[in-house]
């Protein structure tokens, strides 16, 4: 068991240096193509008209919000269960990006709801689940920073992320059931019309673009976190050398 196991994960830094440009380029390309298809090529919806184009941002951000949370929980599991030093760093780096996607999803959901139902916020099953996910993200990040010792905060937040992951399906199921209980069938559900093939292309392109963006920014934040940890280790060593 190497003592300095988290001192310098050199192998990861080498991988990040190689992968970052590829992810960044892929993100830009996919999003550009997605926007081109979404805004210009694909037709307006016969029912919703142009507002359906909001879907090309709203739906991918919902997917990414969910995916990012699994990355946070996955990192937490590998940190707590397999004691992998990078696990907690990846989880800590992914959380803010996931929160950003959740925020985008909620705001674009409201912007889509207003023209469709005349209300900024609709307690639609999926939107409500994303709202609860947003609170889970805030809880994770609040716990992360609630301790003086960053390692202590990391470990506590990792446990919360795992508990959260176990609860997400239960919450989703309960909210869906609750939604059918209270929602008269007449109101169109959030997913709107069946997705026409010409709409699928921009949707998937934007989703791919968001995913590459997530990977690129994740690598950046992990590099920053590794550097920050090395700084703390160096400062501690220098302090001990003086004493």
């Amino acid at each position, binding site marked *: 068991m190497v003592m300095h196991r988290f001192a310098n994960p050199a192998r990861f830094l080498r991988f990040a240096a190689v992968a970052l440009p590829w992810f960044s380029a892929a993100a830009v390309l996919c999003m550009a193509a997605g926007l081109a298809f979404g805004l210009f090529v694909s037709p307006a919806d016969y029912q919703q008209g142009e507002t359906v184009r909001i879907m090309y941002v709203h739906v991918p951000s919902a997917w990414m919000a969910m995916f990012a949370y699994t990355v946070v929980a996955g990192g937490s599991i590998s940190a707590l269960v397999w004691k992998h030093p990078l696990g907690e760093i990846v989880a800590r780096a992914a959380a803010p990006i996931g929160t950003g996607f959740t925020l985008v999803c909620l705001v674009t959901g409201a912007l889509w709801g207003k023209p469709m139902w005349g209300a900024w916020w609709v307690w639609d099953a999926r939107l409500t689940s994303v709202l609860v996910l947003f609170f889970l993200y805030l809880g994770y990040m609040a716990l992360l920073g609630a301790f003086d010792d960053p390692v202590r905060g990391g470990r506590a937040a990792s446990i919360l992320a795992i*508990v959260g992951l176990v609860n997400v399906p239960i919450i989703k199921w309960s909210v869906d059931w609750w939604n059918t209980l209270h929602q008269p069938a007449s109101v169109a559900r959030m997913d709107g019309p069946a997705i026409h093939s010409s709409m699928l292309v921009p949707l998937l392109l934007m989703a791919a673009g968001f995913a590459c963006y997530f990977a690129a920014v994740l690598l950046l934040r992990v590099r920053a976190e590794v550097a920050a940890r090395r700084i703390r280790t160096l400062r501690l060593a220098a302090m001990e050398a003086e004493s």
Partner: protein
Amino acid sequence: MNAFRAILVRDLRLALRQGGDAAAVVLFFVLAASLFPFGVGPEPNLLARVAAGVIWVTALLAVMLGLDRLFLADHEDGSLEGMVASPAPMLVIVLAKCLAQWLLSGLPLVLATPILAIFLQLPAEGLPALLGALLLGTPTLVLVGAIGAALVLGARRGGVLLALLVLPLTVPVLIFGVAAADAAIAGLPARPHLLVLGAMLLAALAAAPFAAAAALRQAVE
């Protein structure tokens, strides 16, 4: 398991001698729920429609309030590390403390509910289902809350952080708790909802202590 009994008896004896904490949780519950008529107006059938929901949300908040002291007192005076280092298994410690907490803050809420049902004009046929739902739901809230209480040990703003962490996890219990009462009021069977609440309680009994034990273990490190 005399360790389980010892922890349970000690916590109950301590709380009943000091008396304050248990009463505070119930008083908050009754007071907070009684504020709603001032907010939404005393009009009976409006209150009747929201009564079950108001009682459930205030019960939820009351349980959260009582929870941040769950491990804190023992953490501060060294008892917690003594217990963790003792032969008593961690799960026994967590379950004993959760049972004591439920007896002190969960059960009194259920006993105080009829008064609020009258205050908030809850239709009479809804009361039995509401009481059943609270009896099944409050222990789940205590078990899930115990994870939060263990996680925030040693954190700066423990109390409010505990609520932020745990409330999102209590949404399913809230949904089915209120649904049970609403179903009974509407003359529909409340049994399926109570069964779901029972299932959630069993799941919490099985899983929550492990998470709380893991959180405690790294809190006493």
